């Protein structure tokens, strides 16, 4: 029996199914695209992307998005941006290669930092995907900065915790005492080995014989000369011993001097146990403003690192997290090819946006973004962004064309009313008022240089409720309450994994001077008290050791001097008797 391979009668139902599929696509394409765009956008940015309406016009190759909201990946109830309308002119042919090439986007009514009612963070909560990993990395990076905390909340100076066992001078003194004993024993042994007694006795006998001998008694004369020679040799041995003793004494004196430097280290150690306020101006600036300055750096770095992950240099295959679905997402691997189109390319975007959207007279600005692409090496030019206006100048350049990516960005915004914030460590709030804010970042390979500055002429200081209990807070209040100019500058430089942070402000000197004036005497008294306590613990041990060392030195030197004098005296008498 011949079996037919094809079931021709199924062609009709299949075509009907195909037509139904096309109809469903036609009806639901906008909804599907809107949902997919929201899903992909959320996955890419690590924050909720919401679109009110999306319309795809296949004939004209246009996509119109209305009511776009992108939540902030960092702040729970804040949007990164909102846009009233985006019209994208899409190149349709690359879509057959699953490549999205947007020739031009016109974005109208952009607004930044608007409030939202729900928490829009995704990566911060789940930690999934590239955005989640980058966010975790930048958070860890930001946590490395050891910001000195002003331990001035009570102004209390406390030295109760000094443990004598942790002082270095006492064991050092014991060691020196043992060294002195050892030296004394060694010197005595060396002295005994000189055997000076027989030499001195024979010399005395020879001298006695010479006194009673005639001038022609050759035997007596020879005895005298031999005795002189023996005395000279004995003297040489005494001289050698003297050198050894002197060297030992030098070591003991060095040990004594070492005790002084050990004592200074103990003073420093004991001082470190005190809760003394820092009176160093740069440290105060870092303590007051570094926590606030690190956040902008962290956010700028998050953007730069995200750009590096999504826009890597080179043409090697690269894997990214696959689409979320019921089945395992897996990884999507892209295979860029020379002289081919990148998977994503936005040739040009024209942006118009509002600053101060809630004020009576919102200011309108314009910007332009070019060359945003997933494969910069294929596009061959860096991504650029610039925006300008009466109180705004912003620009960015992401150059991932070559092997080492270079990202540069900066913005200066004037007239921005910054929110009041709590000054860390002291019960004070600072309201910078309308300030000029500057942020700049250069990331060249793994080297970072960044600047964040706030300048205001209308800064206001406010006392917190806990103010009444804080002496130091009161001091700082006296120092800063009259200062309405605020000039804070934070700089970051060095290797990306461990850069140096420097923060300075015009308040540093004012606060430091005030603290120094008021607390200086208290600090000096506390330090003296601390030194006295260390001395009391050390002197009982060090004093006897010092005396013991001196005694050993004196004894050793005296013994040598005495023997040398006897040898010299006998030699002199013998030489006088000889012709």
């Amino acid at each position, binding site marked *: 029996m011949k079996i037919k*391979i094809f079931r021709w009668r*199924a062609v009709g139902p299949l075509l009907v199914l195909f037509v139904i599929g096309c109809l469903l696509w036609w009806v639901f394409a906008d909804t599907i695209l809107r949902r997919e765009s929201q899903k992909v956008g959320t996955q890419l940015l690590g924050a909720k992307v919401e679109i009110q309406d999306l319309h795809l016009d296949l004939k004209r190759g246009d996509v119109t998005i209305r009511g776009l909201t992108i939540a902030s990946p960092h702040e729970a109830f804040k949007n990164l941006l909102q846009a009233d309308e985006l019209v994208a002119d899409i190149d349709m042919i690359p879509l057959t*290669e699953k490549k999205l090439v947007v020739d031009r986007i016109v974005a109208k009514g952009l607004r930044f930092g608007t409030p939202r009612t729900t928490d829009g963070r995704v990566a911060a909560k789940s930690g999934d995907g590239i955005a989640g990993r980058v966010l975790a990395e930048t958070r860890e990076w930001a946590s490395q900065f050891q910001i000195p905390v002003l331990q001035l909340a009570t102004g209390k100076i406390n030295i109760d915790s000094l443990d004598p066992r942790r002082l270095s001078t006492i064991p050092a003194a014991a060691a020196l005492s043992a060294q002195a004993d050892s030296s004394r024993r060694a010197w005595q042994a060396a002295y005994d080995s000189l055997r000076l007694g027989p030499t001195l006795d024979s010399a005395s006998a020879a001298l006695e014989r010479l006194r009673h001998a005639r001038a022609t008694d050759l035997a007596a004369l020879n005895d005298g000369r031999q005795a002189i020679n023996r005395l000279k040799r004995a003297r040489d041995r005494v001289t050698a011993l003297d050198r050894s003793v002197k060297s030992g004494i030098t070591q003991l004196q060095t040990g004594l001097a070492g005790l002084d430097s050990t004592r200074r280290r103990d003073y420093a150690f004991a001082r470190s146990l005190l809760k003394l306020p820092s009176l160093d101006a740069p440290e105060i600036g870092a303590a007051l403003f570094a926590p606030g300055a690190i956040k902008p750096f962290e956010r700028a770095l998050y953007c730069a690192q995200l750009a590096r992950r999504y826009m890597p240099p080179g043409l090697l295959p690269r*894997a990214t997290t*696959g*689409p979320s679905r019921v089945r*395992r997402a897996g990884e*999507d691997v892209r295979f*860029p090819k020379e002289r081919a189109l990148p998977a994503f390319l936005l040739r040009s975007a024209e942006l118009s946006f509002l600053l101060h959207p809630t004020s009576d007279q919102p200011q309108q600005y314009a910007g332009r973004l070019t060359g945003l692409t997933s494969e910069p090496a294929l596009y061959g030019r860096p991504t650029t962004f610039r925006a300008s206006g009466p109180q705004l100048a912003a620009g960015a350049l992401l150059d991932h064309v070559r092997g080492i990516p270079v990202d540069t960005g900066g913005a200066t915004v004037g007239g921005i009313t910054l929110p009041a914030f709590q000054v860390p460590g002291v019960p004070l709030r600072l309201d910078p008022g309308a300030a000029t804010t500057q942020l700049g970042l250069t990331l060249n390979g793994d080297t970072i240089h960044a600047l964040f500055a706030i300048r205001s002429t209308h800064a206001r200081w406010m006392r917190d409720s806990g103010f009444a209990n804080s002496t130091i807070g009161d001091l700082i209040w006296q120092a800063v309450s009259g200062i309405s100019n605020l000039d804070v500058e934070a700089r970051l430089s060095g290797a990306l994994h461990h850069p140096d942070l420097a923060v300075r402000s015009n308040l540093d000197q004012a606060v430091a001077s005030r603290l120094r004036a008021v607390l200086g005497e208290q600090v000096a008294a506390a330090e003296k008290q601390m030194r006295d306590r260390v001395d009391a613990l050390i002197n009982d041990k060090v004093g006897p050791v010092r005396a013991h060392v001196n005694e050993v030195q004196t004894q050793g030197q005296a013994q040598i001097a005495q023997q040398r004098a006897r040898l010299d005296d006998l030699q002199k008498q013998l030489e006088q008797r000889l012709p």
Partner: protein
Amino acid sequence: MFALIKLIQSLFGALHSEGTPGQLAAGIVLGSFLGLTPLFNLHNIFIFAALVLLNVSFAGGMLGWVLFVPIGFLLDPLFDWIGHHLLLAESLRDFWTSLYNTPIVPLTNFNNTVVLGSFVFALLLAVPLFFVLRWAVARYRMTVGERVRQSKFYRAVTASKVYNVYKMFRP
């Protein structure tokens, strides 16, 4: 429960259909592609079209799909591993690069590790699965098939079609 009855129904329906063991096995093999690989992908449109257009058991295809969906979920980590190794193999890079930059082909999502891994797995499984199933169906029909057809259980399962009708028309 309803899904289980449907599964048993389709199993017996396929086993006792008029199709040859080869047609039934081919249907199940095509269905296994639908079950093993992530469903919403371009290649599955072609698999479905083949299931409809080729003279294979459609019921077998549906049975294969239902049977292999849980296996697909279970083996996803293996598919991911296979796909990862294939896509990042140095020797295949030029091949994938050329496919990736060819129109239409990227729409199959072949560059996804799970899609490629599961498809390759299903492809490798297809031939042995076909022969094993063809032999098993023929053996079943020769040995216990007729006895099953006469059994109360079979009649009860077949009778549950009444329940299907009820499901179709219930408010």
